[in-house]
């Protein structure tokens, strides 16, 4: 009797385990399939998009009236951005596929610029047409290559999950058609990279003044350490650690840090001239004792003390008990947005707990600012008449094409929303419109 009970109990147990295992297995499969499907969708969409893009570039070249190009260019631009999104969803991160992504974004940038340009006034130049033809043939090659991969993948029923596994294990022997196919695509594009350098697709103007204003002698580690003590506001001897940047850095830096109980400080200072780029102090900030406005005065004195001249406050925000202030450079009454620094003040005792001046040093130089051709009143006519303008300034901004332009900056209200509108001070072109928010319903509160 007892034996039978035991046998039945065991049998039920085994059956139960089997059923449970089968269910788990099915669930796992379902999830795997779902993931696989996402990859498949991204991959097939990518192939399709590139194919379509190739066609569209061809049509654009063939178009007789250059003025009709804008919508076509916008279409190509849309396709490049979709393709990029799809590339991003594929598990290729460890595979060097960035050249292809760069290529796509180059096409995107080129077509975007052409699309937003007034082609009536400024039709495509012969050089640009050549660029377009170049892109056409290159896109054709990529398309063929990708279609090839797609074909093999489908014929052999290849799985992206396997690609992921192969990449994760970095198995050298693995002969994976998909990986190899993508590598071929990447190789092809690598070959084009140099060919495109002279074309109309080139870097933006902000590249030109990289750290122009950083001058002076190279400072030694001792000097950097000494300087950091001043910025960290420590008097006694401390165990400071210092490191230098590697080859990849845009500008050689010393990084200095120290930690003690409850406090950690970090500083980046340029080796040449010893300018502070980043200061970060991490410590618990207690109850607020000083106001945001008093914090502003502290921040202002601080940047003046550290030789940032003619800076004006651009924004201030309180996050819990910390005040964050941004300052921009003001050259003879013109606000220069690129030359910005940010300062963080602890509102418990007024300590400076952060500074970042990277943008300032990257962009800052004395600019040749021309006289505006339009008056502020003239420029107002280019603003949407429904916007109630509240404040206006002259400013230098970097526009969508990466050029620095002189603009009128209008701050105005449309309904309850505040907008910042930039009108070119020379020709009245609406360079940029931004909706300013900066605050949000406290989802966590109430």
């Amino acid at each position: 009797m007892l034996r039978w009970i035991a046998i039945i109990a065991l049998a039920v147990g085994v059956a139960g385990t089997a059923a449970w295992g089968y269910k788990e297995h099915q669930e796992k499969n379902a999830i795997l399939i779902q993931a696989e499907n996402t990859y498949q969708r991204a991959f097939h969409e990518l192939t399709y998009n590139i194919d379509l893009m190739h066609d569209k570039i061809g049509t654009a070249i063939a178009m007789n009236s250059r003025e009709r190009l804008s919508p076509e260019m916008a279409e190509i631009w849309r396709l490049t951005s979709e393709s990029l999104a799809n590339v991003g969803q594929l598990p290729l991160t460890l595979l060097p596929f960035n050249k292809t992504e760069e290529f796509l974004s180059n096409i995107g940038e080129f077509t975007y610029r052409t699309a937003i340009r007034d082609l009536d006034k400024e039709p495509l130049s012969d050089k640009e047409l050549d660029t377009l033809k170049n892109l056409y043939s290159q896109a054709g090659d990529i398309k063929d290559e990708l279609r090839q991969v797609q074909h093999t993948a489908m014929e052999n029923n290849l799985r992206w999950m396997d690609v992921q596994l192969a990449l994760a294990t970095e198995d050298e022997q693995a002969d994976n058609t998909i990986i190899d196919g993508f590598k071929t695509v990447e190789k092809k594009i690598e070959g084009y990279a140099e060919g495109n350098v002279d074309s109309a697709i080139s870097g933006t103007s902000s590249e030109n003044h990289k750290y122009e204003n950083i001058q002076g002698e190279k400072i030694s580690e001792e000097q950097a350490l000494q300087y950091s003590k001043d910025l960290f506001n420590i008097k006694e001897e401390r165990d400071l650690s210092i490191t230098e940047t590697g080859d990849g850095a845009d500008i050689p830096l010393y990084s200095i840090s120290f930690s003690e109980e409850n406090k950690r400080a970090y500083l980046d200072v340029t080796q040449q001239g010893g300018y502070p780029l980043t200061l970060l102090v991490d410590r618990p900030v207690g109850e607020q004792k000083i106001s945001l406005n008093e914090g502003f005065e502290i921040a202002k004195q601080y940047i003046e003390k550290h030789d940032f001249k003619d800076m004006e406050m651009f924004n201030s925000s309180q996050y819990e008990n910390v005040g964050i202030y941004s300052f921009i450079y003001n050259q003879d009454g013109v606000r220069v947005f690129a030359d910005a620094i940010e300062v963080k003040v602890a509102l418990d005792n007024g300590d400076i707990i952060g500074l970042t001046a990277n943008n300032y040093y990257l962009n800052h130089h004395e600019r040749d600012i021309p006289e505006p051709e339009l008056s502020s009143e003239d420029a107002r006519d280019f603003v949407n008449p429904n916007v109630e303008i509240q404040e206006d300034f002259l400013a230098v901004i970097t526009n969508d094409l990466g050029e620095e332009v002189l603009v009128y900056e209008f701050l105005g209200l449309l309904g309850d929303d505040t907008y910042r509108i930039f009108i070119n001070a020379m020709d009245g072109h609406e360079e940029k419109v931004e909706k300013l928010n900066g605050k949000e319903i406290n989802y966590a509160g109430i």
Partner: protein
Amino acid sequence: MTLRKYILLVIICLSAIGLQETYFPKEVDAFTNQVIQRGSTGDDVIELQARLQYIGYYNGKIDGVFGWGTYWALRNFQKDYSLDIDGLAGLKTRQKLVDVSKFDGKWVHEQIAKGNDFTYYGGTDLAKQTKPKAKAGGGSTPPKQQSTQNTGNQKKSTNNTANTGNTERKTTAVNVPQGFSQNDINLMANAVYGEARGEPYEGQVAVASVILNRVESSTFPNTVAGVIFEPRAFTAVADGQIWLTPNDKAREAVLDAINGWDPTGEALYYFNPDTATSSWIWGRPQIKRIGKHIFCK
């Protein structure tokens, strides 16, 4: 005898001071003496917004965050009352405002605490200006997050004469960096916590910066979510550590990175040299090492 008299005098003086201290009860609902500027948060801002609304300058929500709407309302008020138009609520402006408007602090704070939809225009019956907030979307937010989000504001303010707007009460809005939502910040904080919770503070800011640099870069997806969920981009996403609840430090680090701090020098990649097996990642130009991570282009 004279000594006793002296002592007595001193005692009387001391108790007089003590009496004075206790005689005037602290007025909870009046402006403190801070200059209120754009970006401020707290009770003073609530009073400022309510008073401006009372006389018809401010039409937005009374939420305790001095944003653009409040700024323009204040400037227009200053213009009409021929004060200096600086958008700062200094002593003169506050006095003028108190003279020409009323503020029922108890009522306003009650509405805020109850989460009601309310306005505070003068000349209209207050009871008609409030209604309970319609429940939106089921309100499935777990209350747990609340405590992490706002610990700073919740800290008990002892009942002394701290001359600021810091209180136990919460504001119904918060400052966020231009172009970012609290949700974006939280998602990034999740990623930073999952990837770098054992790192020094600057190492956490650095990881957040890499995410932002990738959003900016043309070779990566253009959204925070796109970058974070890019397959195989972050190990914390792959192994599920991203769904650990982040601490305040991770969130602060994200905020710093969004506000412009980038200790990496515009890095796009980072890796842990002890565990990285990909030969490709070692070939990238290295910028610097922070904590356990090497950051590269």
